[in-house]
């Protein structure tokens, strides 16, 4: 691991070892196209016994359970779990607004993405990382621990600027892959619902979708008082406002409502929604929050 690499600064060996012990545990995890270390819902020909079923013409004679035939005089075929790889897609919102906050939302997004990518690569899964603006700017799926540095380098060098339209960028994913897998979208999701169509499209592509919202402390609890001219970091729009306690309370109500709407949408779509503050430690998110949400074990 290169120590000058941003990721290298944050990941110690002990943490990486703990990451390697974690696996994705989503209920509808989709099988990849290659064999891997992950249990696939598809019954196959590995060594792990799964079930019996009655013999039907064309079945491989090698899997007939002759002991059962001896007892019942009926032919049964033994089924085995097939171990296949997982296709993990990580989408990071690279808009200007992600640079906002102390610490910045982008920093936490990169750390979480790097850690999950490492976990996938270490499990011999396929990992694809992409930055989302109005377009998708991504890596092709990589596999194996040897690709870790490449993935981390890509994440490190993501350029957070401009405007992001997740609907547009996620819809481009279909061009690159039609295989089922797990898609993690990291963004602040403060937009006029410009992510719903994209995430629906991911679901259409047979992806298990996780939306990870990262908000800065300044967004969660603004400490502005008095007369302010607010500049939108993405659009440059200006808003003049006299901020008092009532306005602040209304802001927080609005933010809460927004998140409730996202959560409701996700529930309807079978999507997992998680919200975190950028001042939280990424280790906590990986080792506690994601396992608690049933994503990792």
């Amino acid at each position, binding site marked *: 691991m290169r120590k000058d690499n941003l990721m290298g600064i944050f990941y110690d060996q002990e943490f990486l070892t703990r990451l390697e012990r974690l696996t994705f545990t989503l209920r509808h995890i989709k099988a990849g196209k290659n064999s891997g270390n992950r249990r696939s819902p598809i019954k196959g020909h590995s060594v792990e016994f799964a079930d019996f079923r009655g013999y039907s013409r064309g079945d491989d004679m090698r899997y007939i359970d002759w002991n059962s035939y001896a007892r019942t005089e009926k032919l049964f075929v033994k089924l085995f779990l097939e171990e296949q790889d997982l296709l993990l897609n990580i989408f990071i919102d690279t808009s200007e*607004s*992600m640079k*906002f*906050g102390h610490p910045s*939302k982008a920093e936490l997004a990169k750390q979480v993405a790097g850690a999950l990518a490492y976990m996938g690569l270490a499990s011999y899964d396929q990992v694809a990382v992409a930055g989302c603006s109005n377009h998708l700017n991504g890596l092709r799926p990589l596999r194996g621990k040897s690709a870790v540095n490449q993935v981390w380098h890509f994440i490190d060098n993501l350029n957070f600027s401009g405007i992001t339209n997740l609907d547009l960028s996620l819809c481009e994913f279909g061009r690159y892959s039609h295989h089922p897998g797990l898609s993690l979208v990291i963004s*602040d999701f*403060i*937009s*006029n619902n410009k992510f719903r169509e994209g995430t629906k499209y991911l679901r259409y592509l047979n992806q298990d979708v996780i939306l990870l919202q990262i908000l*800065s402390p*300044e*967004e969660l609890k603004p400490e*502005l*008082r*008095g*007369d*302010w*001219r*607010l*500049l*939108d*970091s*993405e*659009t440059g*729009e200006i*808003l*003049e*406002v*006299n901020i*008092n*306690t009532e*306005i602040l309370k*209304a*802001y927080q109500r*609005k*933010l809460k409502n*927004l998140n409730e709407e996202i959560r409701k949408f996700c529930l309807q779509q079978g999507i997992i929604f998680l919200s975190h503050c950028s001042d939280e430690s990424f280790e906590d998110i990986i080792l506690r929050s994601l396992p608690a949400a049933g994503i990792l074990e």
Partner: protein
Amino acid sequence: MSFLNPAAGWFAFIIPLIILLYLLKPKYQEQTISSTFLWEQLIKDIEANRPWQRLKKNLLLFLQLLAAFLLLLAMSRPYIPVAGYNDSHVIAVLDCSSSMMATDVAPSRFVVAQKQIEQLINNMSYKDQMTLIAMGEEPQVLAAASRNKKELLRAVTSIKPGRESAALDPVLEIISALAQDSTNCSVIIYSDGRTQPAKHDVKLSCPLEFKKIGQEKDNIGIRTLAARESDNHMIVLAQMQNYGDKIAQVDVELFAEDKIMDIRPTSLEPDEVKNLIWEDVPDNTKYIKINLNHKDCYNLDNEAYAVVPNQDRQRILLVSAGNIFLEKAWGILPNVELYKTSPDNYDKDLSEYTAYIFDGFIPGELPHGNILVVNPPAGNSLFPANGVMKNIKEINLAASDDELLKYVDTENWQILESQQIECPTWCNPLAKYQNNMLLGRGELNGKKIALLTFDLHKSNIPLQTSFPILVNNLSNWLLPESTSNITLDASERTFTLDIPPQTGEVIVEKDGEVVGKYTHPFPAAFPVYDPGLYKITRIAGTEQEVSYLAVNQINALESNIAPVRLPLKYYADNNSGNKKLYNYELWKYLIWLLLLVLIIEWEVYRHGY
């Protein structure tokens, strides 16, 4: 409410100015944030692209407008007309009689009156002055024409209600004198009207206002309590009255010393006076107590003590060659056991008598007891005679209010012949003829000595109705009260005590606590304080003599607590015409309020509400 400085209204321009400041768009600080998406939805109303914004509900604006309004109001010097006595001399008279302790107005009439005077003092302007008079039996001027509010307030709070009735006459005399010296004077009397009526018409040169204090008349009180021994049993008489206007049920409790003897439920019609008699009280009881177990507005007359008079007869030796008048007059006195002897048989060893009457004789050595000398012989050293006066008709009373002359009519006295005696320095002449003493009394070496300078046989005095009265007065004075007991009424604040020469110490106790300890020289009168039973112990060496003194708050004038008009003829209750209105300025309060609003405004600004 009016304004002393309405010109300050011009300052009202500050109010639109403040509103304008809120209407004008403020100067903004710039801040880049991640997204204005949420803010946009919140603040559409302030997004208007105009030089002024819509006036919103703003606490700071409200507080600033309020502060400006208060400042404007204070500058206008608002005032309210208050009934008072501005730039004047108020004579406030507070009734201190015991009926003012009635609790029909909480906490008591006296305290309510005190509060009203305090309010009057607080409303005084710096030009006003006040004289404060406490109206008791004797008026007391507590502050004279004072402008010092602190002094006046201190004086008001220092007044305590007394046990006696208030007397109007002396107060009116003081007011009359004060009013003559003051040009803008007015009088306010705070009272329930239960005062001794004014005997004289008083013409005041200033208006008089009566502030009637009190509402109710609900009271049952003891009017009389007496106990006497008769034929080996004791009779107790208690008289009580319902002063209220409702039928009252009361349990009358009789205590013999400290033991309860009887509880007698009694019903009293409005204004009914009822006598209760007990005849089965143990005959050796020293004092009794009556308690009315009843809650009313005036509790002081619900309890009374009576000390049982001692029936020991006093031994008196009459030394006379023969005087039927003295023998008869002294012999019929109920508490006197009269012994007689002639001057020839008198011996100085006859010392066991309480008092001696020497008629036409004075021994060389005076005995220990008190002495009445009648017709002192010529040549005696005690009352040396200069000659003889004859045909005495016009008698001058040197001290008509003396207790020896109480109820004694001397107008028809005629004396044929009397010794002309020069009055000794220790003796006070009570009746004189041409500057020569006829009747006198005094104390010499602890002995009481009274003197009649003439032979009763040579006067018409024994034939007058005033003679037995004079003898009775003499016996009351000469016979010591050492074993007899006394009862004082509400108006008496002192009692006298006959103290034998050998007495070393007198201790006065009430409810088991020593309230007075006296040694030589003993005071002429001993003070008493609150109503109740006092135990008096006279200590002479190893001997102690105990007697009791009952001090009762029995006074029909005070017990009848119904508030009435002052017993004066000329004043009018509703004399509001005399009352003046003055301008009570409010700017001080407004400034304090303004300060408070500014503090709140600062805190609101600091917390960014």
